[in-house]
């Protein structure tokens, strides 16, 4: 388990403010936040690469706040992979072994073979990093980080520099790797889709402050602030005070906003029972590749829905067409 207690630090003009986090052993924790929110600084602070102004870092019950990075059993993978350019892939992967003092060569040999097989990098072991693709570099960086059996793996936007196709492959391999090795992992990213796919739990960071932590379900379906809601892709955000006068919705008076994820808004050519269902007019289509974004106008409000291409073609939608749309009460998020 990793515990970050009341961590504060100042790096240049940037400040992390009283960060408190608990990450359970074997968990895949994703720290989600926009560029410049302090994600990487926090990772580097956990790794011991940035000095703290205040606070504690406890790993597996031991206070490591004053320990040097090489004594923490933490591995880090950067967005730009940070492979050692003067070493071949094999030497990159085994770099950390020369510093391990337990002398368990057999275990590390097994780790090496397991990682090389899992990440399918056997054919590139004798190459220099210059001659690797982005995906290959990322796999090598992962193998290098994991070969020493770190207690914690820190991933700094590991997928952001990859092409879409390779990204999916690496995402899958990362998930598989985590399921196999169960290494406690903290990944930072600004992409909520990556968090949705990989995370056991998610934390949202902005301006050096943690805004919310929770399970994927909690963060994505029950965000506690408008920023979090918007950041995790909740498109339909309406002020309750305004919308309750227009649509007959049963809403708590305490909440300020209603949010509905776009994938939870259905479109139908007939009314749907047991759901809030309204009439609206299609005003816009956006083909996002894997799904269709449909904007529907109803009584001056615009609702956004995501449909699969299959569903979209079945509905035979055209711009200006009148449709029924709506959502089930369980998908309403009150903020």
């Amino acid at each position, binding site marked *: 388990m990793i515990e970050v207690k009341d961590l504060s630090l100042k790096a240049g003009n940037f400040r992390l403010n009283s960060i408190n986090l608990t990450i359970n052993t074997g968990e895949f924790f994703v720290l989600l936040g926009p560029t410049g929110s302090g994600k990487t600084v926090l990772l*580097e602070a956990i*790794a011991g*690469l940035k000095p703290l102004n205040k606070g504690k870092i406890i790993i597996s019950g031991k206070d490591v706040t004053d320990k040097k990075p090489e004594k923490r059993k933490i591995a880090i993978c950067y967005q*730009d992979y940070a492979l050692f*350019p003067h070493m071949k892939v094999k030497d990159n992967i085994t770099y950390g072994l020369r510093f391990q003092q337990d002398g368990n060569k057999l275990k590390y040999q097994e780790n090496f073979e397991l990682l090389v097989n899992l990440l399918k990098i056997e054919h590139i072991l004798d190459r220099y990093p210059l001659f690797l693709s982005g995906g290959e570099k990322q796999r090598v960086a992962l193998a290098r*980080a994991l070969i*020493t059996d770190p207690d914690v793996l820190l991933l700094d936007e590991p997928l952001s520099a990859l092409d879409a196709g390779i990204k999916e492959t690496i995402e899958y391999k990362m998930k598989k790797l985590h399921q196999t090795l169960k290494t406690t992992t903290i990944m930072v990213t600004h992409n909520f889709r990556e968090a949705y796919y990989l995370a056991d739990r998610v934390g949202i960071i902005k301006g050096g402050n943690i805004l919310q932590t929770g399970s994927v379900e909690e963060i994505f379906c029950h965000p506690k602030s408008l920023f979090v809601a918007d950041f995790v892709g909740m498109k339909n955000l309406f002020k309750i005070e305004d919308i309750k006068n227009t649509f007959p919705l049963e809403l708590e008076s305490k909440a300020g906003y209603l949010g509905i994820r776009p994938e939870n808004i259905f479109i139908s050519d007939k009314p749907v029972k047991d759901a809030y269902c309204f009439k609206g007019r299609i005003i816009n289509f956006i083909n996002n590749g894997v799904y269709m974004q449909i904007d529907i106008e109803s009584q001056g409000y615009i609702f956004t829905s995501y449909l699969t291409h299959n569903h979209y073609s079945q509905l035979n939608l055209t711009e200006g067409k009148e449709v029924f749309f709506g959502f089930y009460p369980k998908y309403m998020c009150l903020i």
Partner: protein
Amino acid sequence: MLNKKTELLFVISLFTGAIILLFITYPIINTFSLTKPALILEALQDREVLQSIYISMGAAAITTFISFLLGVPFAYFLARKDFKGKSLIESIIDVPIVIPHTVAGICLLTVLSPRCWFGRMLTNLGIEVLGTIAAIVIAMTFVSMPFLINTAKESFKWVSPRLENVSRTLGATHAQTFFLITFSLSWRDILGGMILTWARAISEFGAVIILAYHPMIAPTLIYERFTCYGMIYAVPVTAILIIISLIIFIILRIIASGRKEEIF
């Protein structure tokens, strides 16, 4: 149209390049045309000539070694740390490059002569500096060390701190990381800086002559022969110094360029 403009620019660049190459090579080649192999061989048997070349080469090598030992750790510090007054410190390091070298010699003399407490202390300790090889090394180091510090600093800056971070988290200490990663990636550039430092030290005259006319380094000998006996006696020694400097320079350049392109 753009292509034509670009081509014209290349033509101008080529023309200016030709002028530069001619400007550098013609005087050197012409030096050899003014002497004969027999005179060069004769000069090579002259004890005074050989001794001055040994002193020049040796003092320049010691200078480079001292610059390396003192300069590389400091260059690493400057490359990695930002602090108040850093620009001032970097400017101070560059001062020896911008001041005239005879002025540098005078500045050093004011410290090493018995007029200064430091010079008096050395005298009291029985350490003779002025007029010795030590003075030559001091003068050479003063004017040439900035080249090594600046080259090493730029080279270290080029190595991403993230490589060092990864190395540290994989279990390497700061020192191990420096030698296995940072220095391993920078050594060719640092060697390039050492070549510059050595070359600058070999060519130093102004500061050295103030601190140590004797023992004579090759540039002092050439100056003396030129002023006392004329060009005909100065040219063979000049030719020898050019040949030796070029051979060492070329060998070191080949080592410094090495296999770098293949890896990066």
